[in-house]
């Protein structure tokens, strides 16, 4: 559907954890291309390699074999620092467990990626406020995670992920710790970010209701892509 270079391209990707007898073959040859602006849900049974592939795409981990091209650049040969810079500039993470800094206000949590990007304080503050407003938390800037509900914490985490204007949002079971209603709110937010801001979204979920928000669903089984299909265009 898009002729240009894919944002993410996996070619014959393998991941083997450990060595010798104790080793585990978690990914057994993954081929996958994701273009800018897509909203992809990754589904599959537990242990099928979903998180493993997300970690590799997120440049947190390296494949044992095969190629990973991010915007055409081979990632598997990059140094640890080069991958960190790739994360800093192009990738936003949302985790199942929120992963906010404890005893740190929402504003300071959202500011964090901008500190590493070296933005001046005033600009940083303004951008963090704007991101919090975008996720609907204007009035919660000075609350710490302990003072926020699970849904609110995940909103802060999303604000932190998008504050740098990343190319791709990687979300590993973002609604796994949330009730159905809050999950729907979070999914609405992620969908809006994809539609209105053109952020590419790659989301792991095992709930079909959540996967329904995506336009493309990739199914993993036992370290392989079992199916890859586009949903009917939402009316």
């Amino acid at each position, binding site marked *: 559907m898009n002729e240009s270079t894919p944002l993410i391209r996996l070619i014959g990707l393998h991941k083997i954890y450990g060595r010798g007898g104790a080793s585990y073959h978690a990914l057994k040859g993954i081929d996958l291309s994701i273009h800018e602006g897509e909203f992809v849900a990754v589904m599959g049974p537990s242990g099928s390699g979903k998180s493993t592939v997300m*970690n590799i795409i*997120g440049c*947190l*981990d390296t494949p044992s074999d095969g190629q990973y091209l991010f915007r055409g650049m081979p990632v598997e040969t990059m140094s*640890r*620092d080069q991958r*960190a*810079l*790739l*994360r*800093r*500039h192009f*990738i936003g*993470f949302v*985790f199942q467990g929120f*992963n*906010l*800094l*404890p*005893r*740190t206000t929402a504003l*300071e949590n959202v500011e*964090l*990626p901008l*500190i*590493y*990007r*070296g933005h001046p304080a005033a600009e940083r503050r303004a951008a963090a406020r704007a991101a919090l407003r975008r996720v609907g938390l204007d009035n919660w800037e000075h609350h710490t995670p302990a003072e926020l509900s699970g849904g609110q914490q995940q909103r802060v985490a999303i604000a*932190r992920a998008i504050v740098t204007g990343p190319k791709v949002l990687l979300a590993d079971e973002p609604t796994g710790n949330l009730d159905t209603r809050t999950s729907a709110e979070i999914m609405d937010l992620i969908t809006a970010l994809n539609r209105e801001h053109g952020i590419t979204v790659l989301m792991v979920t095992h709930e079909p209701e959540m996967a329904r928000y995506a336009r493309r669903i990739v199914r993993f089984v036992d370290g392989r892509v079992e199916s890859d299909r586009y949903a009917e265009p939402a009316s």
Partner: protein
Amino acid sequence: MIGNALLLSMRAIRRNLLRSMLTVLGVVIGVAAVITMVTLGNGATRSVSDQIASMGSNLLMVRPGQRMGPGAADAPKFRIADVEAIRTQIASIAAVAPVVNTAVTAVHQARNWATTVTGTSNDYFAAGNWTLASGREFTDAEQRAGKAVCILGSTVREKLFEAENPLGSEIRVKQFACEVIGLLRTKGQSAMGSDQDDVIVMPLRTVQRRLSGSLDVNLIMVSVTTPESIDAVKAQIESLLRERRRIGDSEDDNFRVMDTRQIAETLTGTTRVLTMLLGAVAAVSLLVGGIGIMNIMLVSVTERTREIGIRLAIGALEREVMLQFLVEAVVLSCLGGLIGIVLAAVASVTLAGAMQVPFLFSPSINLIAFLFSGAIGVIFGYFPALRAARLDPIEALRHE
């Protein structure tokens, strides 16, 4: 990058304020101990050298025997003729005074006081840096005849006369009555810690005839006109006395000429060594404080594994995480250093008052202790920081 690390470190320290304060306690105590010890030691050294200066400057002390203590008693004493020989044969001398000391109990009315009588001449006042608070010195006639007249040090005067004016009154020393003709101005403690004002001065002959019963002179005090001539005068006195005491070329001196500078060097040298020793002991406690920082920083790295994972996932470089933890350790230990400096100032002023030594603020030791505390942060923060930076982001994020 340092600015960022500083910002992140300050936020982390603020987040754990109580623990941060407890972490630096060791450094606080270490820095405070080092500075206090050295400050008090410098004060003690100063007070010793002040006291030596009060003994009189450019002063030579000639004693029989090679050293003080056992053996000194066997060496032949001096005679008044030796004093006269020094006075007449050696140039560049301001004053020469013979000294005989005897322990006595002095009595005035119902009060009595155990003290020392110094038999000497009027030259003693010039040589020993004494001035009269009131009254007069001895007349030639009194000195020649060995009259029963005396000049009191301020301690003796207080003990025997309290508020009364002693001039013209009599005190009893052993079996004779002695008229008070003068009073010495207060000098305070000597370098050895004795009370220099606890003294009664009488003419030499008076002491020899009525108290010691011999013509011996125990000590000759020589004051030299200029500090430069002190070594020359010392050499001349030595050769003169060797000749007068008929000491052969192969024999050792049976007397000893010491100058105040030498005494000063010996004594201040001792206090300086003590100061360094105490400072070194305190420095060890500073080192222990550093180990405390490393311990807490290691605990902190383990405890904050997840936080480190988050930072790495967000795109922090290894060296940025490293720097943050290093800066955190340095900021903590410098903070400890600053608190220690304040604490030391309070402790030094208080203790200097209690120990009656002057408070000498030394910018250099404060600076050194502060820099040392910073260095401790670097040294003991390095390993925990390295450990934090090397964490695997995925495992760190999974850490509970």
